[in-house]
């Protein structure tokens, strides 16, 4: 059940992400809904589920853009692993946690993606544009992550994937 829900949510997230407008003022960045899901699974579910979610979200993101397959998966897996290491130190149920983690992961993921693309000569190197995109991605991810947390937690609890107020480390 967990994986069916996760797959459906990720496909829907990818659809909304591709349909979301690319904000010029934020460096043409899209609303990073898939990344917000990676943050959610990193802070709320066990490591195996998080890794699978990160891998699938990465494949979807790369497949629906011109990016070579595997770039986003590597980045999301790294970010998921990093967050899951420190999730014991934060309160996943707090409102401020997804905001901070969302902003941080938005910036880091964009920087890592930019470095990979520039290194492989797939985009033109423009430091101003990349910086704008990092800030834009951080801002949008900080906005969308709490929404994703709220909706996904409600759904997960309603289908019994997540019990109320449980410690996420219990799954580890």
């Amino acid at each position: 059940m967990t994986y069916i829900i996760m797959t459906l949510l990720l496909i829907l997230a990818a659809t909304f992400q591709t349909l979301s407008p690319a904000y010029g003022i934020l460096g043409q960045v899209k609303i990073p809904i898939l990344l917000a899901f990676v943050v959610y699974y990193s802070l709320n579910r066990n490591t195996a589920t998080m890794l699978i979610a990160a891998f699938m979200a990465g494949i979807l993101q790369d497949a629906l853009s011109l990016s070579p397959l595997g770039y986003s998966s590597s980045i999301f897996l790294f970010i998921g692993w990093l967050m899951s290491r420190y999730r014991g130190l934060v309160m996943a149920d707090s409102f401020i946690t997804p905001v901070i983690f969302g902003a941080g992961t938005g910036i880091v993921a964009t920087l890592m993606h930019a470095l990979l693309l520039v290194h492989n000569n797939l985009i033109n190197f423009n430091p101003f544009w990349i910086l704008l995109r990092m800030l834009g991605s951080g801002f949008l991810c900080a906005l969308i992550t709490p929404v994703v947390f709220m909706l996904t937690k409600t759904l997960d609890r309603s289908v019994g994937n997540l019990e109320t107020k449980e410690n996420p480390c219990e799954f580890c």
Partner: protein
Amino acid sequence: MSNNRIAVVILLLAVVILLNLPLPASMRIKAGAHNTVAPFQNTMSAVTHTVGKVFSSIRNPNRNLNDKKDMLTEIAELKLKLKENKLFEDENIALRKLINFKNRQKVALVLCEVISRHGANGWWRTITVNRGSDDGITKGAAVITTDGLIGRIYAVSKNTSTITLITDYSCNISCVITRTKAFGIVQGKGIAISDNVPLDMLCPINPLGMDYISKNDSIKHNDLVITSGLGEIFPAGLIVGHVIKAELDRSGLYQRATIMPAANLSELRYIFVIKNKKEETKTALPKLPSLPTMEGLF
């Protein structure tokens, strides 16, 4: 070994395999993902468009009526032009027959609807449309609107196609300035054109640049730029845009111009893909007198 460790090892292996996948396999996976998401995109795109139309009609109730009147006038004008053009076409065919020329190009258009823009991450200037290989669209085909060229097909799946816009850095087009017949290469500058994005304050909007124009040609503001047909990617004669400004390159060897695209790339909804680019490639040229051979010279 715990379940988590097994998952880590398997996924790391999967990432390594993904990163080293050959291009055809990678494109197949991408096409599969596009086909999976396409129905959702189509539905969402239709819903957002309908909602937008409803709000637009509430804000401006007479707009639809005015639009209809404008369209009827335009249809009448176009019908007249079509009749005129038919006469020219007949005359052209007759003249071509006289000098034994065949039609070089037969163009068929596929009408497509835009279902998403700039992919999933916005690094590239692309659009996705709701027609694919099932409708006869092939990779590399030119994409136009009624105003001019907008890009080319980058990838095709069964039901969708991804188009690289001419404003993308990866798009290079061999073009010619109609007034002077000066050739050059038009390249995208990667910045989207939009009326409602105040990017001018942050960085200048130079949507297209045309390089390698001969420095002896005089380029003027508003000169029309069309595709030259060289390189055989884009058919000749497609309108690309107009010159905004031209200057000598820093090397002093050639001129470079800034071009504004003819098509409004920020408001793309319906576009046309040029299908069957070349049906009859054999052109019966008039017979030329035979040139002297090397043997004859010595």
